[in-house]
């Protein structure tokens, strides 16, 4: 399996799409801070707070990245090569997931780092408390991002068509949680279920005007742990579903 993972890393390192995504993301992060520097409210606090308040966007952006890393295996019929060479489907499935997770997190870390560093260089107010909140947000967001990756990974092995994968991913990750939340405003039990979806966990719970801090679900200890529990269960469910499908799938 180690060889399979190495080969996938090699392929991704030589794929222009992934590199463009990473460097494009970094340049975009710097541009955002440059634009913020032209605004009167544009300080480090605002930059960092708005980043972790907008992690739903990062979750959405993660989908095309996962698609790039996956490499359109069914479209190009390339999956038949490792399968016919005797590399077990469980190794292929796990190996690909591991590479997707590693590269997604690497992208997140690199782009975030560039964003933070450029914010501290370009913008004023170098308050450390917001950086602590920012790092805590990144850590709490990671298991939620893993659920998004697991869903995309699972769907890539279920459906051959990339567009279908995208639509179903959006239904599972965005549309169903949003609908549940809307209905949950009237029906309490549905509201509780809605709050267990990664999409709805990424939400602000309060704001402290004195310290200018935005509180998110993960700002409390229970909220922080909740992110990890949801992440673990979500990954387990979708990883297993995708594997069951792939194990019996005919490779063309």
């Amino acid at each position, binding site marked *: 399996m180690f*060889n399979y993972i190495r*080969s996938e890393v090699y*392929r991704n390192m030589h794929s222009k799409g992934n590199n463009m995504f990473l460097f494009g993301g970094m340049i975009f992060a710097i541009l955002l801070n440059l634009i913020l520097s032209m605004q009167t409210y544009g300080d480090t606090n605002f930059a960092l707070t708005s980043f972790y308040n907008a992690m739903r966007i990062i979750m959405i952006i993660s989908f095309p990245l996962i698609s790039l890393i996956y490499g359109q295996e069914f479209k190009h*019929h390339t999956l038949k090569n490792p*399968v*016919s060479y*005797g590399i077990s489907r469980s190794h292929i499935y796990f190996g690909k997931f591991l590479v997707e997770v590693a590269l997604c997190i690497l992208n997140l870390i690199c782009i975030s780092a560039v964003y933070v560093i450029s914010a501290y260089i370009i913008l004023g107010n170098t308050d450390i408390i917001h950086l602590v909140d920012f790092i805590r947000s990144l850590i709490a967001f990671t298991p939620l991002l893993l659920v998004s990756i697991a869903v995309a990974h699972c769907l890539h092995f279920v459906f051959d068509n990339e567009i279908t994968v995208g639509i179903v991913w959006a239904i599972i990750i965005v549309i169903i949680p949003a609908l549940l939340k809307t209905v949950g405003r009237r029906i309490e039990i549905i509201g509780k279920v809605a709050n267990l979806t990664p999409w709805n966990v990424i939400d602000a719970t309060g704001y402290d005007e004195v310290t200018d801090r935005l509180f998110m679900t993960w700002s409390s200890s229970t909220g922080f742990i909740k992110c990890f529990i949801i992440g673990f269960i979500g990954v387990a469910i979708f990883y297993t579903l995708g594997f069951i499908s792939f194990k019996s799938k*005919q*490779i063309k």
Partner: protein
Amino acid sequence: MKEVIKTHKLSKMYGKDNALSDINITVRQGDIYGLVGDNGAGKTTLLRILTGQSYATSGSFQLFSKSSNKQLSRARRRTGVIIEAPSFYPKLTVEQNMEYYRIQRGIPGKDRIDKVLKEVDLLNAKKKKFADMSLGMKQRLGLALTMITEPELLLLDEPINGLDPSGIIEIRNLLLRLNKENNITILISSHILPELSNIATCYGFLDKGRLVEELSIGELEEKSKSFLEIKVTNAKKLSALLEERLGYRDYKVLPGEIIQLFDHNSVPEKISELAVTNGIGLIGLQEKSVDLENYYMSLIGADKNV
């Protein structure tokens, strides 16, 4: 000789359709086994099952005498496979694609890539992206991939599709060389029967998912022996005379007053004299032989008539 592939009542259903039905084939070490059949006969389905891309509905098979899932995975590492069109990552170059599979298969030394690319005459194209290659080049790259691990068994589905005549000859010579020098067993399917007859040492004829016949080159030659085709005005009368006067018994009377005479000792002059002296008009007399294509057509045609 060792059995490299052995299937036992291998069947595959797609819904209610039988793609394969109770297939029993045996490929021995050193064989070049030609799988012959029309589109939809089950050739690709059989190869897909052997390579783990698909699963049999019932029946079993062995690769290198191994049959459990774990053992089969290991056995497949001793094979090289092309099924349908060779598939690679289109935006990677030839070299990058080969390097990807070299790493994946744990093959030491990058020089192995150059060696196999040279064998299929793609060394000069190694910086070319797969998407920009011609069909023939893609086929050759597919063959290069099958050889990167120095396999003991090649499973090739239509490997000469899209190749130009010189490319076909090159691949044919390469396969023959691999078979003779390295004792590589080859299971090959092809629509181009004359080409298949140039290399195969045994054949399996598939039709509508069933194995109609399996035979060695010797058995095929025996069945494909040359014959005299005689067209006369009265085939029934002449056949009786052939038996009575000349003692020929190995013949077939076909519609259109045609006799096919398989007797090796048949002498055309005697037959024409016999016909003329008995008032039978002799329209034509020609020596013919059955090649693989004709044999296949007669086999499948006969089957269709049943």
